């Protein structure tokens, strides 16, 4: 819902070419309240607000200056950022909030060492300054010092362990380095915190698939199924595709001619309902594509792709099941 409101607001904004100051103000306020990251737009439409029309904003000016400053830094408009900082500094000398913006300004100018020093000083004054902690992690990440970023992020999480965004970021850092089991741990923390979030289950299943091996594929299969149970209605193609790929991978492993070890092969062939789930995934994907307005080319590609991943029956699975397909 908020996505559509935002789109409407943006359309009105673009239609007015930024000449409607009240609309600009409304847009910036909306972005602030909903924590949306639209730095280019905020810079473009905020610039006149803090410059020509500053006097009409009253007390809102300071919050808007801060917002536009950060957006300007994000979209590399350093001139605009500097203008904002100098106005804020003039009004609030020695403000720690302004100092944060100055440090961000250093980051934008790729002066990472200087910025890092400022953050370290902030942490000496206040060891729980989460802003400074997070910026140090981002600097490490930007410098591709992922080991350091991971170390700092772990330190942060020992104190602030309920910060889900942080866990997600840590998982991503681990994934980038191929440290999948560490990433798994992060996802497990996330799932404990938000057990109703089906996107998490899908991502976790993808991770398990990538880790490979029968046990992980089994887990992937279960998590995909659970995600689909949680949210059977819309936007589920990612999960169905995942289930398709997972069942196919299990069938491949179970096939004794595939080169997998005997142990893996027999473990895989004991996996339940693989063929049924595979069929269910194919049926559902076909249905979803037909009901959608996907382009014809894509709709034509789908059956061929599906047939690449078809599993009619598990190799060596004994009696082929005649039960109806189940997801459990």
């Amino acid at each position, binding site marked *: 819902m908020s996505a559509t409101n935002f789109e409407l607001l943006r359309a009105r904004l673009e239609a007015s070419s930024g000449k409607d100051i009240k609309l600009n103000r409304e847009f910036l306020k909306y972005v602030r309240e909903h924590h949306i990251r639209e730095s280019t737009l905020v810079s473009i439409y905020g610039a006149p607000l803090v410059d020509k029309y500053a006097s009409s904003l009253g007390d809102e000016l300071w919050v808007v200056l801060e917002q536009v400053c950060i957006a300007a830094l994000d979209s590399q408009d350093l001139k605009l950022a500097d203008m904002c900082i100098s106005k804020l500094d003039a009004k609030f000398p020695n403000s720690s909030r302004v100092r944060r913006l100055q440090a961000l300004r250093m980051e934008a100018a790729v002066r990472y060492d200087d910025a890092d020093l400022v953050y370290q000083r902030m942490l000496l004054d206040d060891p729980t300054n989460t802003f400074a902690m997070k910026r140090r992690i981002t600097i490490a990440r930007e410098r591709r010092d992922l080991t350091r970023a991971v170390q700092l992020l772990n330190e942060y999480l020992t104190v602030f362990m309920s910060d889900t965004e942080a866990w997600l970021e840590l998982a991503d850092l681990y994934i980038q380095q191929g440290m999948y089991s560490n990433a798994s741990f992060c996802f497990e923390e996330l799932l404990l915190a938000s057990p109703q979030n089906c996107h998490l289950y899908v991502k976790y299943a*993808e991770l398990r698939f990538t880790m490979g091996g029968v046990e992980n594929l089994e887990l992937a299969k279960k998590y995909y199924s659970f995600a689909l149970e949680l949210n059977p209605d819309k936007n589920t193609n*990612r999960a169905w595709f995942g289930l398709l790929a*997972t069942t196919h991978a299990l069938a491949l492993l179970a096939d004794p001619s595939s080169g997998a070890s005997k142990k893996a092969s027999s473990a895989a062939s004991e996996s339940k309902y693989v063929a049924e789930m595979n069929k269910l995934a194919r049926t559902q994907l076909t249905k979803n594509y037909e009901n*959608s307005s996907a382009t014809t080319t894509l709709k034509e*590609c789908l059956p061929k792709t599906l047939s690449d991943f078809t599993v009619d029956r598990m190799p060596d699975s004994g009696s082929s099941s005649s039960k109806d397909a189940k997801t459990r």
Partner: protein
Amino acid sequence: MSSAAITFGTEAYLKMLLHCCQHPATSVCGLLLAPASSTDSTSNESGVTCVDVLPLFHSSPLGPLLNISFQMAEHFASQRSQKIAGLYMASETLEDNEISTVAARIGSQMIATQADSVVFMIDNMKLRRGDEIAGSLYVQKAGKWQRSSAPLMMEDGHALEIPKQLFNQRVRPHIVDFEEHTERPEAD
């Protein structure tokens, strides 16, 4: 195979850059498509012509979707008499423009099916400047990925102006990649 030059069609190059710009905070990747008729080992000096790209992901690509998207991409390409010629990838950070481990891994898997696959790593610094083709081509020699010294060319020499204009006008890109497609099938 020997180092191949790559020539970018205008639309292909633009789509690739716009895909990057749409997701400035993450790494992006996609596939390069070339006409199916271009042969490999006997190709002449013009090398590979990339006529289109297929944007895939704007987050770290993991197992299952990667497999599926590749298969789909192959069918999609062959339907348009094209083939997958390689991978393009852009890092999330400004200065990291060497071939990444993920790109190398995916590239090596692609080489297994098609020996002259290439990896095009987008150079975010060059993207900012906009004067030259924003990236480097990597080819595999003796199992290792190396930067190719062969020239990169645009099909239309003036095409490099277009990204600059687009950036100046702050055009909002809307490129749909495979990841987004899985959320909304009508997006293509």
